């Protein structure tokens, strides 16, 4: 009908630009999308970043490695523990430090717990973006709260944990925390089905997500998309399996993958990953080795001359740290390779020909966090 209208020339139509963001309810932070619209249909978009740019890489050059750990909390603030882990792994690689087995296992438990928390928030916000008035979001927050409580008891913080240390962790698990985590596994295994009931079987949810924002395998790889978004496109690639770190090689788990790479697959992969993470936590907490995982506070490390790059599987994809040392306490250069940065870069490709509602849906399914994109 639209083309017929245009051809008849009775009505002149024109494209118009709409500013989605920087203040918009569903741009997940301060993202600014300049959408070019033809009525309801998006013809393309320009992405403007940098509203949260805090110059973290520059700050790192005047901090010691230990001092920089709290800054990594503020990258992907939904998954602070994973950021901590990625950073200390990179630092340990550069310094050539070994971590004892208990610390490794504790790190895995904590990282997977935070992965669940992050995926819950991702699913909740995604449903919220689809217009499911906060109900799934509140369900997700209810379950995320349990994890946050565990973290609170463990390290005293609820969002920015600053828990991992170069060479270990800040605090050892107490008996109570171990019991709490075991209880949480039982609790969460049942609750995952709630989401299947509320969202996966919902006709409107299916209609809104299936075949929306199809990200082809080749495109995803070419754009450097990683994490659940890449796996949703059907690529079986997970650093926990393919480049194991921190003792992930000791655990049995599957890598859930999607088929079409649409928004539905991206949602489903996240949901399945929660189940896999529960499996990993169960194995790790059941076989926790003895030892002292803690590190003395305030210990500073002199960086060797050299460079190290270490990446690890964050909930949103591969977070990498490139650290260059010059023999002083401060890194000469520290590059953060955030997963959301590459994941977001694909949006211009995905929104072409979509409705406005789909733009929001795609953005929600990509599950970006602006804190790590802008750094």
């Amino acid at each position: 009908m639209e083309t017929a209208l245009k051809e008849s020339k009775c009505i002149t139509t024109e494209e118009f630009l709409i500013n989605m963001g920087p203040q918009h309810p569903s741009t997940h932070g301060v993202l600014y999308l300049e959408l070019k619209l033809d009525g309801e249909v998006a013809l393309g978009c320009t992405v403007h970043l940098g509203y949260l740019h805090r110059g973290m890489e520059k700050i790192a050059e005047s901090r010691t490695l230990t001092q920089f750990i709290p800054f990594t909390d503020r990258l992907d603030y939904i998954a602070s523990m994973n950021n901590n882990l990625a950073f200390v792994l990179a630092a340990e690689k550069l310094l050539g430090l070994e971590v004892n087995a208990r610390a490794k296992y504790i790190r895995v438990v904590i990282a997977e717990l935070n992965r669940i928390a992050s995926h819950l928030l991702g699913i909740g916000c995604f449903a919220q973006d689809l217009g499911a008035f906060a109900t799934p979001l509140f369900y997700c927050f209810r379950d995320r709260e349990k994890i946050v409580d565990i973290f609170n008891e463990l390290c005293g913080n609820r969002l920015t944990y600053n828990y991992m240390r170069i060479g270990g962790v800040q605090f050892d698990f107490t008996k109570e925390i171990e019991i709490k985590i075991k209880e949480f596994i039982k609790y969460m295994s049942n609750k995952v089905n709630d989401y299947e009931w509320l969202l996966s079987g919902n006709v409107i949810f299916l209609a809104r997500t299936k075949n929306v924002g199809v990200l082809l395998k080749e495109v995803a790889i070419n754009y450097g998309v990683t994490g659940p978004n890449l796996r949703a496109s059907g690529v079986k690639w997970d650093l926990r399996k393919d480049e194991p770190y921190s003792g992930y090689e000791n655990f049995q788990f599957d890598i859930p993958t999607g088929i079409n790479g649409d928004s539905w697959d991206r949602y489903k992969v996240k949901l399945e990953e929660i189940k896999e993470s529960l499996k990993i936590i169960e194995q790790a907490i059941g076989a926790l080795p003895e030892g002292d995982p803690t590190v003395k506070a305030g210990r500073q490390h002199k960086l060797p001359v050299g460079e190290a790059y270490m990446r690890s599987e964050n909930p949103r994809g591969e977070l990498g740290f490139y650290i260059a040392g010059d023999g002083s306490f401060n890194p000469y250069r520290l590059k953060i390779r955030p997963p959301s940065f590459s994941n977001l870069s694909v949006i211009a490709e995905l929104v072409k020909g979509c409705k406005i509602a789909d733009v929001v849906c795609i953005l929600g399914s990509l599950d970006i966090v602006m804190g790590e994109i802008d750094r």
Partner: protein
Amino acid sequence: MQSVNFFEVIRAKFPEALQEESTQAIIIPKEKLLTLARFLKTHEPEFDSLHCLTAIDRKERIEVVYIFCSLKAKASLTLKVYLNINDLKVESLAGIWKAADWFEREVYDLFGVTFLNHPNLKRILNPDDWQGYPLRKDFTHPNIVKKP
């Protein structure tokens, strides 16, 4: 980084390639970057993903660092291009890996390296009217206070 295995392969094709002692990264003259990139993309083990692109300011030169990754062979490769501080121009890889688009804009924004034939070389993190390149070692700004 399993760059050691690939160094010989690359060396056979590109005799100009060197290996950096401390990091095992492969150094390639900037004129050869584009041909090497195409070679890496198409030949075994097919580095199909440009995982990371960054730069390091070494005062007299800027090193542009490329980290390629092959999902098929589970291998990665670090490549470096040394750019003289007076001639910060290098070919863009955005035509080969789309991932390079934003990474190169970031390096341009923070280091002032110009990527030739880039589709849209604009500042990405800083405002368009920002002066200077923040991650350079000689960057100064009135708001930056030196630690005592």
